[in-house]
Each structure stands twice: as C-alpha cells, then as structure tokens.
C-alpha cells in the first residue's frame, strides 16, 4: 500500500495523461466519426465508397499496428510529430470508425417518415441531416458511443507500448523499481475502473436526459 502512496505523483501524472488523451481523442473521434457517417449516407457515391473504405479499414486493423506504423515508421517519410500527439491522432482516426458505425446504427433507428417529412418540406440533404436526422440519431446512440469511449480509454494504454508514459506505463515503471506488482497493478486497475465508471455513469445520465419519448 505504501508503494502506491510513495509514488503517488508519478502515478497521478500517468492518470492525468490517460485522462487528457481520452478526452481529446474522444472529442476528435466524435467529430470525425459524425463526418464519416455523413459522408457514408450522402448522395455522392464516391464519398459513400470512401467512408465505407475508411470504416472497414480501421475496424479490421489492430490499433497497435497503426500506432507502431505512425510512431516508428512515418518519421522515415518526414512526418515528425511529438510522440503523444501522434498517439492521440492515431486513436482519433481509429476510434472514429467505431463512432461512425455506432452513429450509422443510430440513423437506422430514426423512423423513415422523419426523412420523408424533411424532404417533403423542401429541406436539402444537408439540412435534413443536420436538423432532423442527426439530432435524433445521436440521441439514440449515447449508450453505444459511451461504450466506444470506454474502449478508447482502454486503448490509450496501447500508447504505453510505443513509449507514452500514461497510467499503464507509469504503473509498470513504478513496479520495475519497487517490484510490488500486486498493490501497483491493482491500484492502476482500480483507476481504470473508476474512469470507466465515470464514462458509464455520465453516458447513463446523458442518455436519460436526451432520450426521445415516442
């Protein structure tokens, strides 16, 4: 137990890195994911194809392989970014595919009459998507998107494998020095569970507040 208290600053630094990576990557993935969904249901066939390709690619490629590619290989083609920034960018484009899948399933839950009514009163595609379809779709997918965010929280740990010192990495570092795996890893595990609980509870609250009563 003491080992946790003695190394609290290092571990809290790790927690903080994990939190801000999750928040920044989460917001980025949400925005990019909605854009990808919009492209995926757009009238332009080429945009639809690109969006489908994007989603299929990132759903089927390991996040760690992408991280390794971006962090170790892309500097060879002159793409130099700070390590943590690279990790966050990878997480954004990776999780955006999952957000896009969730939002698309939300669009499928919107009643067909809504889209027909939006068209009937003369809204353009973008207007009906922005004013009628997406608001309802997004409200319907709070829970699935929350699950994507929890997955994102856990995937931030992969950044440890390429050298970002977030919660998992800092726990491991402390353990390598003090060799008391049980309290350290249990502590790190509890921290992850607490963060996941925060995401889960806030999506629960949000879901109740924005639910559409039909």
């Amino acid at each position: 137990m003491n080992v946790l208290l003695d190394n609290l600053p290092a571990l809290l630094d790790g927690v903080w890195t994990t939190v801000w990576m999750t928040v920044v990557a989460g917001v980025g993935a949400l925005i990019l994911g909605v854009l990808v969904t919009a492209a995926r249901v757009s009238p332009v066939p080429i945009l639809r194809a690109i969006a489908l390709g994007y989603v299929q690619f990132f759903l089927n490629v390991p996040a760690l392989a992408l991280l390794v590619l971006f962090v170790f290989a892309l500097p060879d083609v002159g793409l130099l970014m700070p390590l943590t920034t690279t990790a966050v960018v990878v997480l954004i484009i990776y999780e955006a595919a999952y957000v896009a899948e969730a939002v698309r399933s939300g669009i499928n839950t919107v009643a067909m009459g809504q889209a027909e009514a939006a068209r009937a009163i003369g809204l353009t595609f973008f207007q009906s998507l922005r004013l009628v379809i997406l608001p309802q779709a997004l409200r319907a997918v709070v829970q699935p998107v929350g699950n994507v965010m929890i997955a994102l929280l856990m995937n931030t740990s992969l950044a440890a494998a390429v050298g970002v010192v977030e919660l998992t990495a800092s726990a491991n570092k402390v353990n390598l020095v003090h060799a008391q795996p049980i309290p350290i890893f249990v502590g790190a595990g509890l921290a992850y569970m607490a963060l996941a609980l925060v995401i889960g509870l806030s999506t629960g609250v949000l879901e109740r507040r924005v639910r559409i009563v039909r």
Partner: protein
Amino acid sequence: MSASVLFDEPGPRGRRRIRIASIITVVVLVAVVALGLHQFGDHGQLDAAKWRPFGQWPIWKYLLVGLRGTLEAAALVAVLGAAAGLILAIGRLSRVTPVRWLATGYIEIARTLPVLLLIYVTLFGLPRYGINLPLLWKLVLPLTVANAAAFAEIFRAGILSMPRGQNEAALSLGMTGWQSMRLVVLPQALRRVAPSVVSQLVSLLKDTSLGFIVAFTELLYRAQVLAAYNHLLVQTYLVVTLVYLVCNLILSGLAHRLQNFTRRRAAGPILEKMP
C-alpha cells in the same frame, strides 16, 4: 431506414450537384494521395529497391511464420475465452446468488481493464510470485481473461433474447432447468449470436498484435524484428497492416454472411405461416 431515404432520386440540378461534388472529391482524393506519394518519394521510400524484398519468398515466409503464431494464439484465446465466457454467462444468469455475484463481478471488472495492463501483470507481476509462463501463454492468458468477459456478455445477450416461452415449454415438458438450458435455450441462443461471436474474433485477432510486447512470435513482432534487420520500417509495417486487414476482412465477411443466413432462417418459416 436506408441511406437512400435521405435524398430523392436526383433531378437535373441534383445530378449536376452530385457530379460536381464527385469531381471535387476525386480531385481532393487524388491530391491527398499525390501529396502522400510525393512525401514518400521525397524521402526515398518509393525506390523499387525498398519494395523489392516484399516480392521475395523468404521475406514472406518469415512473416507467414508470424501469421501462423497470430492465428495460433487467436485460436487458443477463442476456444478458451468462449468456453470461459459460456460458463460466466450461465453463471451470471444463475439463480444461486453467490454464483451470480461472482460471475457479474468478474465480467464487470475484466471489461474495464486494458489488456495491456493484464499483459504487464503476467509479464512483470506473476514472475515475482514464481509463476513464469511460457511465451505463448504470456499472450494467451491475459487475452483470455479479457475476452472471456466479452464472450460472456455476447452469450448472455443471446440467452436473454430467447423468448421466455422456450424455457417455459421445456420446463413444462418435465425438463430440469439445466436440461432446458442445455437442450433448448443454448443451442438456439448460440446460433442467434454467431455473427457477434465472429465480430469478437476479429477484435481478438487484432488484440494478438500485443504479442509485440511479450516478444511472442506473431505477425507484428515478426514485423518489428524484420524492420530492425532490413531497415525498411515503412514498407514492413505497411505490408503487415495490410496482412491484418486481409485476415480480418475475411473474418468480417464471414460474420456478414452468417448474419444474412441467420436472419433468413429466423424470418423464413414465420413469414411463410403468416395468413
């Protein structure tokens, strides 16, 4: 609601707009690809000499050994994780309170722990207590611990999605609760969740890339060794990413076909009997 409901069959003006949007998209896409290729070319990464090795059998043979390790680990995790998941799912639905609590606790905890943390525990934690697993199991054990919870939730959803009447009918025939579960509910529930199970297999195969950290001979680890040897980082990691993509697209395609198959089967007989 399908996407096509969102817009009308375009008229002359709509078609013109779509054409313009298509042209802009293509131009932007070509520009991005050209910029990327230019960047690659500028740093000499497009030289034929740097890609030629990937036309040679020994390099592929080296990577395919890694792929075999990936598939081996994935298969082990799939079998162990699915078996443990089934037990956990039944445990979570059990009427015996302590069993239910244990299963629920395990599932909820395991679902919110990053796999990498579990790997670090097996890698750096367990040896301190005299448990030093073989390399393969250092990857398989943490993945199984995590995936068992995921499988359990899939199976539980399947069991809960069965109509209550199935279980009630089995009980009224004189079956015990366990017999009903084993002979009536589970076979139908498992068939119903088959597509989700295959999707979980995709995620699991992706997770085996963590063998990179435990130095188990799987695809990504082999790529790392190869890249360190031939200094072709970009090429090697790109090729390996594409290999993962192909493997998982095959699995995803299987999930898609299973989904259509089960949907047809579920819908077929009932619709036929409709008056």
